[in-house]
C-alpha cells in the first residue's frame, strides 16, 4: 500500500489511474436532453394550438383565424377584423378563461410533481393532501369578509395550514410518513376544510349557495377574467421558476434524506422551502379556480412514462402537459352540457380517480 500524494478534490478519480485506458471507452450516458427537448418543443406547440382552438369551441362559430386576428389586434400588430361583439367573446370571455385554465393546470401539475418527490409519495397531490381545500377555506373567508385583495394571501395561508395539518397528522400516526397514511391524513383534512368552506358559504348566504359551494369544492373556471390570468400566471412564473430550478435537489431526494444530505442538500431547509412554495402556488391557483383535483397526480405520472423520473425533464414537461390537460378539461366542462356548466373538477376526478386506483394497485410498497 503506498501512501498516495494528497489529491485535490475534483481531480481524485483521474489521478494516477492504474486501470487500463479502455476504461474510458465506455459510452457516456445517452443524451437525455435531446429527447426532453423534443418533447418540450412538441408540447409547447400543442399548448399554443390548444389555446387557440379551445377559444373557438362553443357558440359563436369562431375560427382559429378569427382568434389569431383578435390576438394580433389586441397586441397592436394587426387591424381588428371581428365585430366588437365577436371580438369581446374572444378577448374578454374565452381567452382569459383558457389562459387561466392553462396556468392553473401548469401550476397544479408542477406542485404535484414537486410534492411527490419531497414526500417520496407517488400519491402526493395538492388536492389529495388537503392543500386545495385549505386554500378554499382561506379564500372563502376573505370573500365573505369582503377583503378581496387578500384573496391569494388567505388562500396561501389556508393551504399552508392544511399541509402542516396533513403532514403532522400522518407522521404523528405512523412515526414516519408512509404514502397511504399521508393520503388518509389528507382525506381527513380535506373533509374538515371542505365542511368549513360549505358552512361559511351557507352562513353568508349570498346568491346561489349550492352552486358556489360546488365551485369551490370541485373547482371551476367559470367567470375568470384577466385578473385571474394575472394571479394564476404570475404565480406560476414567480414560484414555478424556483421550483423548476430545484430539479437537482429533488432528484437527490430520490434515495431518501440521508442520501440527499450526503449529496450536499440541506434536507430540512429544502423540504420546508419547497413545500412552502407548493402551498404558495396552490393558494394562488385555488383563489381563482377553487379546488380542482387530481391534475397534480395525473400529469406527472403520465410524463414519467414518457421521459422518466429526472426532474429536469419531469418538471418542465409536467408544466406543459398540465396546461394542455386543463385547457381541454375546462373546454369540456363548459361545452358538454351547454348551456349548463359542469365544475371542471368533476371531469378531472373522472380521469384522476382511475389513475389513483392504478397507482394504488401498482404500488405494493405504499403502506
Amino acid at each position: 500500500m503506498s501512501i498516495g500524494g494528497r489529491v485535490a478534490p475534483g481531480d481524485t478519480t483521474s489521478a494516477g489511474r492504474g486501470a487500463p485506458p479502455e476504461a474510458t471507452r465506455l459510452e457516456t450516458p445517452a443524451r437525455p436532453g435531446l429527447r426532453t427537448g423534443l418533447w418540450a418543443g412538441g408540447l409547447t406547440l400543442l399548448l399554443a394550438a390548444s389555446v387557440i382552438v379551445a377559444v373557438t369551441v362553443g357558440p359563436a362559430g369562431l375560427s382559429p383565424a378569427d382568434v389569431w386576428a383578435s390576438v394580433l389586434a389586441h397586441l397592436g400588430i394587426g387591424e381588428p377584423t371581428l365585430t366588437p361583439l365577436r371580438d369581446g367573446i374572444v378577448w374578454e370571455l374565452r381567452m382569459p378563461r383558457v389562459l387561466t385554465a392553462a396556468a392553473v393546470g401548469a401550476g397544479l401539475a408542477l406542485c404535484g410533481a414537486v410534492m411527490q418527490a419531497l414526500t417520496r409519495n407517488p400519491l402526493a397531490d395538492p388536492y389529495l393532501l388537503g392543500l386545495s381545500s385549505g386554500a378554499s377555506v382561506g379564500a372563502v373567508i376573505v370573500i365573505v369578509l369582503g377583503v378581496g385583495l387578500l384573496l391569494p394571501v388567505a388562500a396561501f395561508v389556508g393551504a399552508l395550514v392544511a399541509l402542516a395539518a396533513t403532514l403532522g397528522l400522518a407522521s404523528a400516526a405512523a412515526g414516519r410518513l408512509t404514502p397511504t397514511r399521508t393520503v388518509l391524513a389528507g382525506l381527513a383534512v380535506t373533509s374538515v376544510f371542505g365542511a368549513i368552506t360549505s358552512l361559511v358559504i351557507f352562513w353568508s348566504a349570498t346568491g346561489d349557495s349550492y352552486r358556489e359551494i360546488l365551485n369551490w369544492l370541485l373547482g371551476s373556471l367559470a367567470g375568470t377574467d384577466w385578473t385571474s390570468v394575472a394571479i394564476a400566471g404570475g404565480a406560476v412564473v414567480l414560484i414555478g421558476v424556483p421550483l423548476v430550478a430545484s430539479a437537482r435537489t429533488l432528484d437527490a431526494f430520490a434515495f431518501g434524506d440521508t442520501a440527499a444530505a450526503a449529496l450536499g442538500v440541506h434536507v430540512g431547509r429544502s423540504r420546508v422551502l419547497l413545500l412552502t412554495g407548493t402551498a404558495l402556488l396552490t393558494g394562488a391557483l385555488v383563489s381563482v379556480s377553487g379546488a380542482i383535483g387530481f391534475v397534480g397526480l395525473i400529469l406527472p405520472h403520465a410524463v414519467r412514462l414518457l421521459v422518466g423520473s429526472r426532474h429536469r425533464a419531469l418538471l418542465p414537461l409536467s408544466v406543459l402537459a398540465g396546461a394542455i390537460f386543463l385547457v381541454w378539461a375546462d373546454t369540456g366542462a363548459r361545452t358538454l352540457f351547454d348551456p349548463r356548466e359542469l365544475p371542471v373538477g368533476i371531469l378531472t376526478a373522472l380521469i384522476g380517480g382511475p389513475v389513483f386506483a392504478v397507482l394504488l394497485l401498482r404500488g405494493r410498497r405504499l403502506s
Partner: protein
Amino acid sequence: MNDVGGLDAARIRFARGDRLIVDGVDITVPAGSVGALLGPNGAGKSTLLHLIAGVERPDAGALALGGDDLAALRRRDRARRISLAEQEVAEAPGLRVSEVVALGRTPHIGPWSGLGERDRAVVARSIDELDLGPLADRDYSTLSGGERQRVNLARALAQEPELLLLDEPTNHLDVRAQLSSLDLLRRLAARGHTVLAALHDLGLAAAHADHVVVLQDGRVVASGAPHDVLEPGLIRAVWGVDAEVLEHPVTGRPLIAYSGVAGDRSDQRMPRARPVAAGHPEA
C-alpha cells in the same frame, strides 16, 4: 491533526434523545489508506459514518479532512470531498442506472447547468469501474440487491470524493463481487483516496484494511493494524465468539477461523474451541 491529509476525528459524541450513540470516538485514517470500522450491531458504526458525512451533526468533537475543519465547510463543499455509500437504499422508481450514478455529480453542478463533458466522463468511468456497463440503461428498481449495492458504490465514486465512506459495502454481494469491491477500495486508496468502510465481515477487514477500528457501545475499544487488533481475546470480548487467528498461507494476513459462540463473554481468556453454548445474550 495529521498533515498527510486523511480523516481525523477527535472525541466525537452524539446522542439521539437521551441515548448516547457515539461516545467520545477518536479515529484517524491517513490519506491513501483503507480503514475498516468494525463492531457488533448497534455499536454506532452507521451513525459515526453519518456524522463524518455531515448527514447529522456531532454534539461534540472535531472532524477534519486533510487538515480542514469539516464543520466550517458548506454542505455542498463537504459533499464534493466526502461521499457516502449507504447500506440500505430505498427504491427509486423510474431512474435508470446511469441516472442514479449521475446523482453523484449533484454537488459539482449548478441548478441550471446540465452534466458537462467532464461530468459525463466521470459518470461513465464510475459505471465502468464497477462493471455496470451492461446495466447502464436498466431501471434501478429492477436490479438485485447486489447490483444495487454496486450502483450505490458507483454513485459515491462519481462524487469524486477525497474521503469515501461505505456502510457495509459487501452486503448482498457474492464472494467474487465482495472481493472485487474490496480490491476496488484498495485501488482507490492507492490513487490517494481515503477510505473508511463499516464492515461486518472480520475476515474481509483483516484481509484488506490497513487499519481497523473496533467500536462497541459507541466507544472505540481497539484500533490499529489488523494483525495487532484482531486477536482472539478481543473477538471474544466484543462479538462473543470463539475464534482462532491464523496466518493466511498465501497473503500472510490474519485469517480468522471461528469455532463457535463463546459461553461467557466476560471471560477474556482465550479458550480452546468448545461446543456452542446456548442462551448467549445479544450478539
